[in-house]
Each structure stands twice: as structure tokens, then as C-alpha cells.
């Protein structure tokens, strides 16, 4: 008869150990991110193709984007990602207070990003850059410019949805850190959320050149 071995802290019954549970959670998050790579990959691929067919329209449309807000947001999102990464490393040591601070700072930067994006959208719409009958543009290849702004709203709106989910997840980590839940043998929720948060960062890092820089 086998001897009963009590599970280690925070390992659910279906896992052999806390390490097994952590590795399963991280693999699950990477599986989800693989679907996200395909999801956003289609958007980038479409962008490359349409840009190739409409170089002039995309070039002219890029000049109408707000480079300052786009660049500031790139710095903000990169900073938010790195602040949370520092929190991940503190979580591995079981330090809850730094995790709380990192999550609050990172989530706050995320909210600033979303606020700036909303302001930029209102600016764009004010300039007549809203796809459809109301769309206004000058110069050649109006159709190409129109397509650029369609992709712009599709890409940035999808990103903001992901960003909003990320802010909620980071807030959830802050709440759990406040309760002192993370320990050296239980920190994988912070790592899993960090993976998602960094992926949202990666998406923006690649949207930035397509929206604001290419052809400027």
C-alpha cells in the first residue's frame, strides 16, 4: 500500500507538485499566446499586403497620424512592461509589497496609455479620419488612405481591448499581493499575467512602426 504524501503548498489535487502546477499554467498561457500570435499576425500581414498595393495612400495617411502621442505611448507601454517584470522577479522571492507597488504602477501606466489613445482617436475623428461616408482626405490615392485608417482603427481598437483586459489582470495581481498571497513556492499567477502583459507590449511595439513611422 502506497504511503500518502501530502501535496505541497498551493498545489491543486490534480498536480503532482507546485512546480507541475506552475509549469502547466505557464504552458497554458503560452498556448493562448500562440493563438494571439496568429490573430495579430493576420492583421500585420494584411497591413504589409495593402501597403504594398497602396504605397502612396499609406504614405500620405501616415503623415496624418499623431507621432508625438504614438511615441509617448510606446515609451509608456515599454515602461509598464518592465515595471511589472520587476514585480515578477519580486514575486519569485515571495515579496508581496514590491509586487503590489509594481502592479499599481504598471496598471496606472496602462490607464495613461488607454487615456492617450482615446484622446488620439477623438483627434483623428475630428480630422475626418473615420472610415465610411464621413471620411475626409486630401491628395492622391484616397482609397489607400481610407484602407490605412480602417487598419489603424482595427489594430488600435483590438490592442486597447487587450490592454484593458491586461489592466484588469494587473489589478487582480495587486489585490492578491495586498493579501500577501505570493510566496517563493507560489507565484505563477504573477508570471502568467506578466506573460500576457508583455505580449500586449509586443503587439504595440510592432504596431508603432506600421502606424507612425513607415513612409514618414
Amino acid at each position, binding site marked *: 500500500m502506497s504511503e500518502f504524501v501530502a501535496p505541497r503548498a498551493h498545489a491543486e489535487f490534480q498536480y503532482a507538485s507546485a512546480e507541475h502546477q506552475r509549469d502547466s499554467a505557464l504552458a497554458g498561457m503560452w498556448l493562448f499566446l500562440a493563438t494571439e500570435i496568429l490573430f495579430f499576425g493576420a492583421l500585420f500581414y494584411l497591413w504589409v499586403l495593402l501597403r504594398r498595393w497602396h504605397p502612396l495612400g499609406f504614405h500620405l495617411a501616415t503623415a496624418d497620424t499623431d507621432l508625438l502621442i504614438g511615441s509617448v505611448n510606446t515609451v509608456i507601454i515599454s515602461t509598464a512592461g518592465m515595471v511589472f517584470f520587476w514585480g515578477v522577479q519580486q514575486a519569485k522571492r515571495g515579496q508581496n509589497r514590491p509586487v503590489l507597488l509594481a502592479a499599481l504602477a504598471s496598471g496606472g501606466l496602462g490607464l495613461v496609455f488607454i487615456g492617450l489613445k482615446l484622446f488620439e482617436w477623438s483627434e483623428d475623428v475630428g480630422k475626418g479620419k473615420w472610415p465610411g461616408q464621413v471620411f475626409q482626405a486630401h491628395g492622391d490615392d484616397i482609397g489607400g488612405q481610407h484602407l490605412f485608417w480602417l487598419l489603424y482603427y482595427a489594430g488600435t481598437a483590438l490592442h486597447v481591448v487587450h490592454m484593458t483586459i491586461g489592466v484588469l489582470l494587473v489589478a487582480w495581481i495587486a489585490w492578491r499581493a495586498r493579501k500577501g498571497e505570493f510566496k517563493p513556492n507560489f507565484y505563477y499567477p504573477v508570471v502568467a499575467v506578466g506573460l500576457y502583459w508583455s505580449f500586449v507590449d509586443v503587439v504595440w511595439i510592432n504596431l508603432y512602426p506600421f502606424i507612425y*513611422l513607415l513612409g514618414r
Partner: protein
Amino acid sequence: MKALWSDPAVRTTLKTWLVLLALVAGELGAALLGAGIVAPFVGIAMAAIVFAIPMELPSAPNAAKIFALAGLFWLVVMLFGLGTLDPLTRHDQPTHFLSQP
């Protein structure tokens, strides 16, 4: 401050952050100088750094590495491979409806 810098976690975070900011500045500068074509490649380099350091892919569980590589693999096969066949082989590209708002 010295004690803070002696923490490897702080050092790694700060160094990575500074490299990312330098790359953002680099691609922005290149674009303003009329070399915006390099910007997407800088973006890919930054993504590789984020995958390697904050996302810790090299030290991730094997299953996680397989899933990450599977995402890239199917992206190449489905989109860049199969997806490119149509635009490369199409001779009647419908540009007429694309050229109107």
C-alpha cells in the same frame, strides 16, 4: 542606491528597459531622417528582446517553448506561406474598388 543596483533583478530590468528605449529612439530617429523602412525590423528586434527577457522564453517549461514555436510556425505556414500564394499568383487584382473611398 548602490544596494538597489546590486540587486540582479533591478539591474536586468533597468538594462532591458534602457535598451528598449534606445531602440524606440533609434527607430524614431531613423524615420525622421527618411529611413522609416528600418522601423519594422527594429520592432521585431524589440519583440525578440521582450520574448527573451521579460517573458523568459529561454527558461520556460518545454511545453511552453513548443507552444510559442508552434505559434510562429503556423504563422509562417498559414499566413506568410499559404496567404502569399494568392497575391503572388493573382493577375486580375481588383484595384478599381480599392482606389475609391
